[in-house]
């Protein structure tokens, strides 16, 4: 059961860098112990929140891309919920969307490849008609 997920979470802005490192590494170990893989960790940095969350106006955004089953997400979300400095988190499944995008891209590429060929053939046809 391999699915790709994207976990975005916000930690409080006054959190020390080392604590954040520690939190991320514990999450990574949790992922690997549950049988998933961490695809990427992206720190998006401090950002202004659109609304106040627990009296904070800013937050440090972190984006975690993982692959694994539903149990993994359950575990990660539980951990995030328990962790005090995490203000908010959002999990989005991305593999189906990616599949859809790949499909569209494939169709577009195929069309792009196909386009020059018909453009060339009508000319040939026309000239043939003219000569005939």
């Amino acid at each position: 059961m391999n699915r790709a997920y994207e976990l975005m979470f916000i930690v409080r802005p006054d959190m020390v860098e080392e604590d954040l490192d520690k939190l991320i590494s514990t999450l990574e170990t949790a992922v690997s112990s549950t049988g998933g893989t961490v695809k990427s960790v992206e720190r998006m940095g401090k950002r202004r929140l659109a609304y106040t969350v627990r009296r904070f106006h800013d937050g440090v955004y972190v984006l975690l891309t993982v692959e694994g089953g539903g149990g993994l997400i359950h575990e990660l979300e539980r951990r995030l919920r328990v962790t005090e400095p995490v203000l908010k988190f959002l999990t989005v499944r991305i593999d189906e969307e990616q599949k859809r995008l790949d499909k569209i891209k494939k169709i577009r590429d195929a069309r792009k490849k196909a386009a020059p060929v018909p453009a060339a053939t009508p000319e040939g046809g026309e000239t043939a008609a003219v000569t005939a």
Partner: protein
Amino acid sequence: MAEETRATSAPSESPAPSEGPSHGHRPGPRGPRPGGGPGGPREGGRKYFRRKKVCKFCVEKIESINYKDVRLLAQFVAESGKIVPRRLTGVCTPHQRRLSSAIKQARNIALLPFAGRAN
């Protein structure tokens, strides 16, 4: 010409030169007007003509409507924080569906406000 002078000279002498051309013009354009002025396909005296709305996502071939792309989503959120309806933006139904779900996800993670402007 004879008609003009008769009409203008009757009220007074001084406005005659300025009014003359306009009087002379008035019957003129009435003919060519239905033929189409510079405005394009306008009917009768209607002032507005609606431009055809097109789906931004279809035209620009934006396929992925992601909740992280705040700048894109913000174009479809009103000042009050509401999602702008399709009938105003012209977005097609499949894209509006994706758009609204993306906006809702962005709201959830505090990238977009639920109500009011982002402070």
